[in-house]
């Protein structure tokens, strides 16, 4: 039979390709083999990891005491000690001929750098170079593997090998991001001018994380005077501009008003936001119109920021703009915020009528939450208030103001006074109709202030602190006055009139920071020394960092900071000198508390003799005047060695702090009253966690030093303890 070609083709097409079952079995073998290899690898890797870990542990055990001896070796030691020291030095050099030992030694030194401070730290850095370990790190810079280069940079940076600066700098625009970032950090860390170089030359973006780290390095730098960051506001690198803005804000460099206002028109949203934050921070009134223009195209976050800023720098002229928002903005949060700002600018412009009725009937806070819910079935409530039945004109202003008591609103309104001059901006003073309101405000202020003071005087009981329970949003913001605005707008006649009307208490009250706002943002009140009218120019003194963070030093255990944080909650004494009675009292309490507060006291109580002696050494190195009282108590210690050491420390500390005549005379103990403002322990304490001045950060140094003792693996500390107990 003849098969037609077409049929044949169709038929052949229907023939399926044969599946090679043998191939499948071969695959089985392959997978089984691979599985077996992986299995072996698992156990090999586990063994390797364990073995290496154990080897490193043993090496560390051998090396750590040697390093400790190096670090704490006294050149005036006895001959026997010197002999031991030299032998150890030879031994250690022998050990370092083994590459693993060099690695471990580097690791040990890197670990140890976080546990020592002061001279010991310097010696540690010196030791790193003496042992020529930095040469290994330099060699890593030539590696083709980015992780090795990065590690090399890290080692050189952390061990403060300053000669590495020019070698590392060349990596600042490396195409490999990890190396580039590490090089940027190193550049900033190794030299003070590094930040300028970094910002000048950075081609690539600087991520937010990198910015955080760079700022952290700058924050921890001692005796640092930052460059004028406005120079970089014109950079073509968007991230450089953004970072410069953040640095300007952090270092409170208020000399870039025009540039900041110009940047409000930047295409980048983050830059706009950062510029706006600076403007808010520095209260540039001239930015008001550009800010309002910015509003329409902004997102919710930026809009809230804009409203906040208007609340701070605006006047009643902005009420129309705000009212439009309060009425017509589609976003509930913006509407609410606009109302809150209206109340800030003009108290009682938004009245909490319905809310008062509600609170009179039922104090359930849920009322406030549920008010605007009638349209949504899920939000309908059995006790729904007849909000919708209210006249529209009322309804628009009755929404949710009672969340905070009236007496918290009024201070905000009054805060436009200049606390220094006792003046108010023209827009407020021109409004003579406000006079009775001022009096009423004053009365409320008195009550509010006394309540506040009572809280303060009731001590440091955390349970009494209201911060944790206050609503944090949309509360009226207590504005710090814009001295520029006040100075520019108020005539001398008006100043006099108002000065007679305004009692100093409320003015001082409002000059402080908004505690609730601070809590929300950074949990600690800022100490803001408001510039007076004459201080409007750029402040040439190194700026005080604006915020301190409790329990969170970058390298200190949180519990050391806890008491400091609580003390910081006390009122600031900056104005105590002008005879303000209530604040003077609060300051006195605060100072008393601080005077008796020594970070060493508590630790001292629990340590053995040897450790106490070490603590005393640390006090000698990093102590402050507030250790004075404590040292004198130690003089009476039953242990003669301790008493003797305390006496030495007092002498040394007295010399260091310029108290030459202090000696051991208790009567020479400095009292808070004797201290100048700059030396005031209150200031020192408050700024301690943030300041670049090492002298102002005794707690941090102390905590580092103490941690040296606390770290159980540190053999020298352990050995000493053993000896003591033995």
């Amino acid at each position, binding site marked *: 039979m003849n098969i037609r070609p077409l049929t044949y083709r169709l038929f052949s097409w229907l023939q*399926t390709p044969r599946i090679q079952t043998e191939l499948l079995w071969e695959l089985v073998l392959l997978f089984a083999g691979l599985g077996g290899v992986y299995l072996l690898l*698992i156990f090999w*890797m586990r063994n390797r990891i364990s073995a290496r870990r154990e080897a490193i542990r043993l090496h560390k055990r051998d090396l750590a005491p040697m390093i400790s001896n190096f670090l704490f070796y006294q050149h005036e030691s006895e001959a026997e000690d010197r002999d031991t020291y030299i032998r150890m030095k030879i031994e250690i050099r022998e050990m370092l001929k083994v590459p693993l030992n060099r690695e471990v030694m580097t690791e040990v030194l890197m670990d140890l750098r976080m546990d020592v401070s002061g001279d010991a730290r310097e010696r540690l850095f010196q030791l790193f170079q003496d042992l020529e370990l930095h040469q290994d790190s330099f060699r890593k810079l030539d590696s083709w593997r980015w992780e090795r280069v990065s590690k090399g940079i890290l080692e050189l940076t952390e061990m403060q090998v300053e000669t590495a600066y020019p070698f590392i700098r060349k990596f600042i625009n490396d195409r490999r991001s990890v190396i580039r970032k*590490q090089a940027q950090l190193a550049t900033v860390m190794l030299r003070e001018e590094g930040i300028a170089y970094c910002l000048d030359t950075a081609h690539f973006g600087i991520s937010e994380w990198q910015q955080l*780290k760079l700022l952290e390095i700058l924050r921890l730098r001692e005796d640092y005077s930052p460059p004028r960051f406005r120079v970089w506001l014109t950079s073509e690198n968007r991230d450089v501009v953004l970072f410069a803005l953040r640095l300007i804000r952090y270092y409170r460099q208020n000399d870039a008003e025009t540039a900041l206002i110009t940047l409000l028109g930047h295409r980048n949203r983050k830059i706009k936001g950062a510029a706006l934050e600076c403007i808010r921070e520095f209260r540039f009134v001239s930015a008001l119109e550009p800010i309002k223009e910015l509003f329409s195209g902004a997102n919710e976050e930026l809009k809230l920021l804009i409203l906040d800023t208007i609340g701070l720098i605006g006047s009643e002229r902005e009420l129309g703009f705000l009212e439009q928002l309060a009425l017509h903005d589609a976003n*509930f949060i913006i509407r609410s915020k606009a109302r809150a700002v209206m109340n800030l600018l003009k108290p009682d412009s938004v009245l909490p009528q319905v809310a008062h009725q509600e609170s009179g009937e039922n104090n359930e806070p849920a009322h406030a*939450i549920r008010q*605007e819910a009638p349209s949504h079935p899920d939000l309908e409530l059995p006790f729904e208030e007849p909000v919708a039945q209210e006249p529209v004109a009322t309804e628009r202003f009755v929404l949710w103001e009672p969340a905070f008591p009236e007496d918290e609103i009024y201070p905000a309104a009054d805060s436009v006074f200049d606390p220094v001059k006792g003046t108010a901006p023209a827009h407020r003073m021109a409004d003579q109709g406000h006079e009775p309101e001022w009096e009423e405000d004053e009365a409320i202020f008195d009550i509010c202030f006394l309540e506040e003071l009572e809280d303060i005087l009731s001590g440091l009981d955390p349970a009494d602190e209201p911060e944790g*329970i206050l609503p944090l949003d949309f509360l009226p913001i207590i504005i710090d006055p814009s001295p520029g605005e006040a100075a520019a707008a108020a005539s001398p006649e008006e100043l006099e009139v108002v000065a007679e009307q305004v009692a100093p208490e409320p003015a001082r009250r409002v000059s402080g920071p908004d505690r609730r706002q601070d809590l929300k943002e*950074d949990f600690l009140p800022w100490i803001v020394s408001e510039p007076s009218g004459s201080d409007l120019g750029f402040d040439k003194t190194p700026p005080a960092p604006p915020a301190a963070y409790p329990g969170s030093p970058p390298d200190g255990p949180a519990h050391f900071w806890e008491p400091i944080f609580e003390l910081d909650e006390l009122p600031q004494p900056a104005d105590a000198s002008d005879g303000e009675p209530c604040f003077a009292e609060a300051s006195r309490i605060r100072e008393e508390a601080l005077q008796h507060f020594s970070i060493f006291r508590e630790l001292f109580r629990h340590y053995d003799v040897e450790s106490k002696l070490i603590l005393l050494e640390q006090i000698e190195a990093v102590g402050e005047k507030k250790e004075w009282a404590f040292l004198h108590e130690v003089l009476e210690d039953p242990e003669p060695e301790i008493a003797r050491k305390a006496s030495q420390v007092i002498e040394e500390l007295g010399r260091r702090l310029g108290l030459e005549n202090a000696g051991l005379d208790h009567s020479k103990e400095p009292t808070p009253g004797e201290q100048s403002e700059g030396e005031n322990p209150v200031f020192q304490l408050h700024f301690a966690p943030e300041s670049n001045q090492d002298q102002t950060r005794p707690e941090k140094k102390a905590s580092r030093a103490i941690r040296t003792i606390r770290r159980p693996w540190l053999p020298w500390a352990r050995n000493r303890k053993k000896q003591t107990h033995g």
Partner: protein
Amino acid sequence: MGNGLLDILLEYINIVFLTFTAIMFALFALMAYLSSRNSIHYRNKSGVGDISRIMASPLAPGITIIAPAYNEGPTIVENVRSLLSLRYVNYEVMVVNDGSRDDTLQKLIESYDLEKIEHQADPHWPCKPIRSIYKSRQRSFSKLTVIDKENGGKSDALNTGIRLSENKYVGCIDVDCLLMPDALLHVVRTFYQRSSKRVIAVGGVIRVANSCEIDGGTLEKICLPKSWLARFQLLEYTRSFLLGRMAWGRIDSLLIISGAFGFFDREIALRVGGYDTQTVGEDLEIVFRMRRYMHEQKIPYTVEYIPDPLCWTEVPEDLEVLVNQRDRWSRGNLETLYRHRDMFFNPKFGRLGMLSYPYWLFYEWLAPILEFLGFFSILLFWYLGILNGEFFVAITVVVYSFALMFSIYALLWDVWSYNQYTRTRDILILLFCALIEPFTFHPLVVWSAVRGNFKKLFNIDTGWGTQVRKGFAKA
């Protein structure tokens, strides 16, 4: 001729099976390669520097951890304490009591000295009514906010938290999860590490905490679960998180952020309307929507994944609970895939449409159904006498050996990355689990998935089901 055609048809069916298997092998091999590269890269990168220095930086962004709680009475106090002890300054813990019927709220009030505060909420935000908001009178718990609302489900509770939060980022977690102290630092680093793209969401590895010793909210000792069901899940999680998600993260195509540990850019989450309350696969769905939104807005973005073991959770040890959970997951898959069906092989969505979506459709959703049908086909073919026995045995063994190899490979990376199960016995047990999993645990998972799909297709609504919390073992 008739038999000839049937033979041909059967041969083609075999070829289809073989091709499907080959594609799966190829995909898994690729996945293993990508995840390995990503793991190595991540390890090298994260080995440099100390992230804890940043925890108090003034530029560090605020994070709100939202933890929905429903009938969590036995464990809530301890769990919240753990959340309050994280190493980060600028964060808030927002526990949303989703109308619990037990004493969850009361325990919180008593333990943390809570009092009602007044607060406002957007009335137009679609979530169940809020009854009250609480803050602690004690400063030490000032980071804690408790929201008491009417029951509306997990998504609804999370949406409430997202709305009420004021921080830049929100973390949506299960309240019974145990976060490692540095978890937020890792999250912030991940959100902040990109300069060219906006990171809209960050997910992480979920580790199994069953039988681990926990004290004071701290993980004291890592132990292998005692329950076999939990052990299988541990192996499964290791495969999924260490190889699967790591690989998808490498090519920026991650489509799911686990509901137990997911952090979002609050602004974008709000823009897309928060979690979808109409689906039980809300964690998958919100990532779909956020990605879609960013694509449509043409904003460069990414979803990141942290391979560090930052979150530990209790997995079901009860069979019924497990089946319900997997049933829910498969329903969630189906709902989400159906809702976003226009993405399927849609080049407009880039890798999302051309790679991630098809993967989810063919592997995560379709594979269990095919397996289930395949099983019955085999029985049928065997009954009809048309089963190609040689081919069947060969391909079954190939698939098994590949699955086993893949599991061992996952264990290898687990050892390389974390090496947390230090006893040799633990590794041997996990290997044994890998050996028997295809015959024991896997059929359960397949069955649950089929049940979920069946329920969804026939509108049998069972919601979330229940999960009984045992609580972590005390150290």
